């Protein structure tokens, strides 16, 4: 049976997903082995499905939407992979965490740095609220595999997926597999 694969995009720059696309022709081999059930780059599914085998989660948890989605992901996924530095350390989006609270950051970005027409984005139910801090995924739900890098190089992603496809838990050690940055 094909492995049910999801990729998830939280508060990240999508660079991790771009690195996933750098798997180039191996993607064709991968496509034969997995069914992509949820992914911003490979499907148009809006609700996270049930019974997912492996989910690659890019980005930290920085908004109310991220929070709801990551809880669903955890509930319906067997192996949750924290995909890239933002998911693991909060990384670049987490730079805002040194400033007190979401309001400070929104005011800086949308009022202080704007021309005279600046206004705060407010559209309840449409634009998700910023959380006070961007949290690493493991601060919110348990993580099974950590796949660091900003972005993780394609070879590193492949090594992890190959182990998971064999039904093994990847052993993450050495600069090839775990160096941040």
């Amino acid at each position: 049976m094909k492995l049910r694969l999801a990729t998830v995009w939280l508060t990240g720059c999508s660079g991790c997903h771009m690195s996933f696309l750098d798997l180039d022709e191996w993607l064709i081999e991968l496509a034969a082995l997995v069914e992509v059930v949820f992914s911003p780059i490979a499907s148009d599914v809006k609700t996270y499905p049930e019974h997912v085998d492996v989910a690659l989660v890019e980005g930290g948890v920085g908004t109310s939407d991220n929070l709801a989605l990551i809880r669903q992901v955890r509930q319906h996924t067997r192996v949750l992979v924290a995909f890239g530095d933002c998911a693991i350390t909060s990384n670049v989006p987490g730079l805002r965490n040194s400033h007190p609270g979401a309001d400070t950051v929104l005011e800086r970005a949308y009022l202080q740095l704007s021309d005279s027409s600046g206004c705060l984005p407010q559209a309840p139910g449409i634009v998700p609220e910023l959380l006070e801090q961007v949290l690493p995924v493991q601060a919110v739900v348990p993580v099974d595999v950590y796949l660091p890098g900003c972005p993780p190089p394609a070879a590193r992603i492949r090594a992890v997926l190959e182990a998971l496809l064999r039904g093994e838990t990847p052993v993450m050690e050495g600069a090839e597999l775990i160096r941040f940055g």
Partner: protein
Amino acid sequence: MSVCTLTIDGQAVAAAAGTTVLQAAQQAGITIPTLCHLEGLSPVAACRLCLVEIAGSDRLQPACVTAVAEGQVVHSATPRLRDHRRTLIELLFTEGNHVCAVCVANGHCELQDLAVAVGMDHTRLPYRHPQRSVDLSHHRFGLDHNRCILCTRCVRVCDEVEGAHVWDVGWRGEHCRIVAGLNQPWGAVDACTDCGKCVMACPTGALFHKGDGAEEKHEEAWRLAVILRAHRAGTAP
């Protein structure tokens, strides 16, 4: 010169009396991780990464300041030590703001290398995200407190080798930080000779050349090693 015989990780080692456990291990080809230590500067045992177990004592000892003794039995890589080292590295990462992706030292950073060495694929501790400043007042160099791990290598190299004593350590606990002069902007301290030795000694991206972008700081460890060796031999220019 009297010689001590000891064992490190089961290996028999002979070392001159007065050498440290760290030096004895290095001479025997055994690697003990270090961060605050720099051969040629006085040891301060600030980082505790080099902790070892010595038979007969429950207390862990920093190898960089512990002298060898006759018959000493040293273990440098027990599971307990490995676990402590990983926790220490996690503490260093979580108490500062180490965003490797946007750091001048990315790929050339001793802290980053040590994280790999101890197997850190994530931290088990919460990040503190402190508010820290950057000092860009010097015309050639910058100091980013977000990345400083308080190893004091800059303090010692400036004092002991350059003789300028620009740096000191101010305050305590979470407020502890490196200060130039009497807590002045670095650029306002006349004693600084612009030699750049502190930048070379810094294991992270905390001290850097202005204009360096992400990944552009190189360790230049060999350059500094040459200077430190010449200094010890009394032949420094």
